[in-house]
């Protein structure tokens, strides 16, 4: 084994190293903990106020949860690439790590970030918005898990694309929405099923779609990442 050979072990270590780099940076700045969480809290508060005493149908509430999650993702998941641009560290990263390691490392980071964010979102949402009832909790949990995976996958590759563009902030949701729409529709449907108390079998179809979506997006992102990343 030569010193420059990229073995699976080395690759995995690169991935973890990149993940840890972003993670530690995150802990230092605490952006996620402060700004992102405040964003989620604010959004849920706004929903609460707009609903007032009337409330909304269970279906509408199921959909709105994912609106909050979507915009939370839009706020937070582009940071991992944009911050490299802002700090001028992109070139360094391009040189010291293989493109695919960067991709998986940042994907892992976004995954952890969005999972954490979504858990908080769900807790706040379920806690404060009356009328949001989940009758089949396992289905709901699987939905959240798979949904977070899906968001992380799509958001990471789009983030890489817009990191070099001019109008990053507004461009991010514009590019992400069409790509994430299949994910959103499926996940809203699954949440609706969970809220109504459907059996696991009924939701299985949605889970299949979610899993194939995740696989497709991750694979295509992996294949295309080199083109996005390298100049």
């Amino acid at each position: 084994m030569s010193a420059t050979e990229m073995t699976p072990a080395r690759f995995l270590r690169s991935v973890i190293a990149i993940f840890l780099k972003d993670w530690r940076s995150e802990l230092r700045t605490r952006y996620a903990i402060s700004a992102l969480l405040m964003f989620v809290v604010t959004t849920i508060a706004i929903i609460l106020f707009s609903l007032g005493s009337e409330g909304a149908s269970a279906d509408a509430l199921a959909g709105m949860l994912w609106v909050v999650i979507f915009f939370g993702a839009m706020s937070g998941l582009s940071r991992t690439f944009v911050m490299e641009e802002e700090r001028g560290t992109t070139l360094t990263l391009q040189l010291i790590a293989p493109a695919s390691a960067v991709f998986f490392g940042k994907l892992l980071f976004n995954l952890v970030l969005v999972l954490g964010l979504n858990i908080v979102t769900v807790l706040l949402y379920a806690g404060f918005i009356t009328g949001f009832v989940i009758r089949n909790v396992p289905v709901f949990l699987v939905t959240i898990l798979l949904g977070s995976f899906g968001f992380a996958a799509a958001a990471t590759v789009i983030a890489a694309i817009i990191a070099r563009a001019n109008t990053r902030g507004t461009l991010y949701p514009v590019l992400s929405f069409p790509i994430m729409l299949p994910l959103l529709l499926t996940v809203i449907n699954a949440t609706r099923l969970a809220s109504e108390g459907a059996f696991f079998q009924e939701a299985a179809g949605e889970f299949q779609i979610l899993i194939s979506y995740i696989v497709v997006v991750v694979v295509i992102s992996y294949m295309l990442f080199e083109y996005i990343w390298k100049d």
Partner: protein
Amino acid sequence: MAIKILLGVLLTGVVIAGFGFPMSAAPQTWYELPVIPGLEDKARIIFFHVPTAWLSVVAFITSMLYAIQYLRKREAIDDIKSSAAAGLGFMFCILATLTGAVWAKFNWGSYWNWDPRETSIFVLLLIYGAYFSLRSAVEVEEKRATLASVYSIIAAVTSPFFIFIMPRIMTGLHPGAKGDPEGAGPVIEFKMSPNMRVIFFTSLIAFTLLFYWMFTLRVRAARLEAHHHSGG
């Protein structure tokens, strides 16, 4: 040259036949179209609405194919073609959405209903919009071409999911949605008479030729522009 003449003849014929052929409850002659209860004359729009929708998809796929070529060969001409196809696709998509909304108003009462097919054409519109927003946000030509190509591939890969998702989510107004017999296509439901089918397919071919011609024109113009820039 022959293609252009053919296109002219065909599409003119389609317009005349599509609008001119009278409708009667019991068609006798070859130029009479059957009356579809509930739709009558408004059914004629199908000769124009479906081809525009069809073209916006064809253009999207064309754009994606050239995008792949660009990433593989890195030749600017492929990105020019990809962008030209997308531009046309965008235009036809807008037309398809508008004609679809008009049809929806006549047929089902309101301009928009979020039925699966309507939503799909809207998503296609969003994809085209996103594509051009991306292109306008990157200044360096090579980077712009690369990122645009990547995005069109990602969009093309994730859109087939709609085919599977949509029917699960809502019953559609469009023929061929949930609740309809399996395998029934959007148009076959119509049960078009033979002469209607001739007009329809001619329209489809004519519009495709139109697209092809406009596409080559755009590519030629872009080529000349690029030539001029680099010192022609």
